[in-house]
């Protein structure tokens, strides 16, 4: 058993091994086991399964994260409005309570599954899996997962999606990338939302927000937009179109993609 699983002699039982020279590391009933796996490996396993679902049906999956009220649902409404003749969109909504956001999406004629997490302040791969099986993936090109409004935990959980998009609204202040590095480092694209408020909130410096993001070694595009006025929405739609195209190419080539940050981490951690 122990040759294959990598059990070790511990300082506590070493004397026993020496005592008779045998490879007797379970002699005092103790065994140290090297594991070196992620604390979230259960979740990561489920996430990989979710990703297979998306890929099998050639669906691009985008995880939207932000603090509460940064405008995720408003962005989805504007995106559906603009792309409904181009792509078939589905939405998974994560909130602590209420069906409000799913209802807003359904009102646009798009299927939406609401996950109410109760006390959990983030979505995990198991919750998303349950929601996936309520959607007809063959009838979709893009699935948006609107995560629970929270700048802390959602970044730690792989849901099986392909891209992380993080919103930062003008009213939150330009120092958020520096204050929430785990979240902003995880973003494949950062959207500065509610830019129609820039003239009102003079102290918000776009340059400072961009600088905070670059300090995190982020190469993510920083797109400015307002879901209210539609300003800047075009660049976001173009980014999405590029992602849908890339996803189709990947699936055609039998490849998949994890949000960059988690992939790097995994590679390094696999080396121990």
């Amino acid at each position: 058993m122990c040759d294959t699983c990598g059990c070790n002699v511990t300082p506590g039982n070493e004397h026993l091994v020496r005592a008779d020279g045998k490879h007797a590391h379970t002699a005092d009933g103790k065994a140290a086991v090297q594991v070196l796996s992620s604390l979230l490996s259960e979740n990561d396993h489920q996430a990989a399964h979710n990703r297979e679902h998306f890929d099998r049906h050639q669906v691009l999956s985008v995880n939207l994260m932000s603090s509460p009220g940064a405008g995720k649902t408003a962005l989805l409404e504007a995106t559906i409005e603009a792309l409904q003749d181009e792509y078939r969109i589905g939405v998974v909504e994560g909130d602590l309570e209420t069906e409000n956001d799913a209802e807003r999406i359904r009102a646009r004629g798009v299927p939406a599954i609401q996950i109410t997490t109760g006390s959990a302040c983030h979505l995990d791969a198991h919750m998303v899996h349950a929601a996936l099986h309520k959607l007809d993936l063959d009838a979709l090109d893009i699935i948006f997962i609107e995560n629970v409004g929270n700048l802390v935990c959602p970044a730690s959980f792989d849901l099986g999606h392909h891209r992380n998009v993080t919103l930062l609204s003008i009213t939150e202040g330009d120092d958020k990338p520096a204050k929430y590095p785990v979240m902003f480092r995880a973003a494949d694209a950062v959207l500065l939302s509610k830019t129609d408020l820039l003239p009102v909130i003079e102290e918000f410096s776009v340059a400072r927000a961009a600088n905070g993001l670059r300090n995190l070694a982020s190469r993510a595009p920083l797109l400015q937009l307002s879901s209210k006025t539609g300003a800047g929405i075009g660049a976001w739609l173009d980014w999405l179109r590029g992602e849908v195209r890339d996803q189709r190419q990947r699936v055609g080539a039998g490849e998949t993609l994890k949000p960059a940050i988690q992939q790097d981490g995994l590679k390094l951690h696999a080396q121990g």
Partner: protein
Amino acid sequence: MHELAVCQGLLDQVTRIAHEHAAQRVDRIVLRIGPLSGIELPLLEQAFTLARAGTVAQDAELHTEAAAIRVHCETCGAETDAQINRLLCGECGDYHTRLVSGDEMLLVSLELVTDERDKGNKDSSFKIQDTSNEKTSTL
């Protein structure tokens, strides 16, 4: 907070490994946690104290190794220390860096008690050594 969820994931894993090794008890759990993992250590320790009750790890000591933040620069090739919200190259200042360490959230190792009969008694543990080896070889 999500530390409780992380902790439950940890305990699921520990329980499975302990079971695979036919362990009666887990004495020590070693983790490596980086500042960029999103895990707050005091919260994780607090969550662990709550969540371990009734599991095979209910008496286990949780030991955490901190991981330093290190980045590798793609521009100049240097590997340098960095801070949680400043991951630039320490040599040339460029932002084209990759994290080498600092976002770890790893279960490193476990110390399992696979035979409790000889607990605290060295003499009996010598006697039991053969039996436990026999037991091991039949597994």
